C-alpha cells in the first residue's frame, strides 16, 4: 500500500507541468515571425506584442531550469521548482517558404526516487514567417 502511494506521488505532475512547458514554447514559436538567435540550449524569437510592437521572447536552459525572457528581461522559469530539465535542444529548420523550430527536452521530477526521465518532442512552423 505504502509502495503504491509512493509510486503515485512519483508519477504525479509530469503530464501537467511538462505539457505546459512545451505548450508555452510551441505557442510562442508559432506566433513569431522570425528567429533572432538559436543554439542548442537557447532560442530567441522575434515576435509582436498585443499592441503590434516588436518584442523578443527567449527560452534558455540555465542550470536545470528553462528560463523565459521577454525583451531580455527575465520573466521566470517555465518549470516548477520540483521539476528539473536535464536536456534542452532547439534545432532550426529552413524551407523555401519559411522556418520552423524542432524542440526537445527531458524532465525529471524531484520526488521521483527512481530518477526516471521523460522526453518531450515537438516541431512548430513559424506562422508569421511564411513567404
Amino acid at each position, binding site marked *: 500500500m505504502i509502495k503504491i502511494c509512493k509510486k503515485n506521488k512519483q508519477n504525479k505532475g509530469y503530464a501537467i507541468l511538462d505539457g505546459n512547458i512545451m505548450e508555452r514554447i*510551441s505557442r510562442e514559436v508559432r506566433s513569431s515571425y522570425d528567429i533572432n538567435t538559436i543554439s542548442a540550449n537557447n532560442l530567441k524569437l522575434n515576435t509582436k506584442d498585443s499592441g503590434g510592437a516588436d518584442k523578443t521572447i527567449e527560452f534558455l536552459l540555465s542550470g536545470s531550469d528553462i528560463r523565459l525572457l521577454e525583451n531580455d528581461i527575465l520573466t521566470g522559469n517555465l518549470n516548477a521548482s520540483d521539476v528539473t530539465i536535464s536536456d534542452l535542444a532547439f534545432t532550426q529548420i529552413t524551407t523555401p517558404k519559411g522556418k520552423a523550430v524542432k524542440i526537445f527536452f527531458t524532465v525529471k521530477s524531484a520526488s521521483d526516487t527512481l530518477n526516471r526521465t521523460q*522526453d518531450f518532442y515537438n516541431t512548430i512552423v513559424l506562422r508569421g514567417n511564411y513567404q
Partner: protein
Amino acid sequence: MVIEILVAVSIITVSILAAMAVSQKSIYVSRQALHATQASFLLEEGAEAVRISRDNAWANISSLVVDINYYPTFSAGTWMLLETPNTVGIFTRTVSITNVNRDNITKDIEENGADDPGTKLVTVTVSWPEGGVTVTKTLRFYVMDIFS
C-alpha cells in the same frame, strides 16, 4: 464473539483491498495522462512534418502512395516522410495520405467527384502500449498545394 471478529476482519480486508485497487488505478491513470500528453505533441509534430515536407516541395506530398504508412524522419536538417519504420521511445508514429475528391460544380470536398491533385487528406497516428493494450491517437487534416 467469533462472528463479530470475522465480520470486522472481513470489513477491514475489503477496505484495504479497495484502497489498494483505487491507488493502483490512479497510478495507471496518471501514467496514461503523461503518455497522452507526450503523444499529443508527437501528433502535432507529425502534422508539422507534413507541412514542412509540403513547404519544401509539393512533390514530396503528391508523390506519396495513398494508404501506405510513412514515418516522419528528421534527416539532413529537415523532416521527411519515409517508408522505413521508426519509433520515438515507446511511441510509433505514422502518416498516411488519401486522395481528395471535389464536386464538379460547388468545388466542395465530396466523396464523389473529381480528384483534386492539389489537396490530400493526411492522417497522423501515434500508438503506444499501455497496460497490455495498444492505445492509438489520430489527427486528420487536409494539406493543400498553396505555393505552386
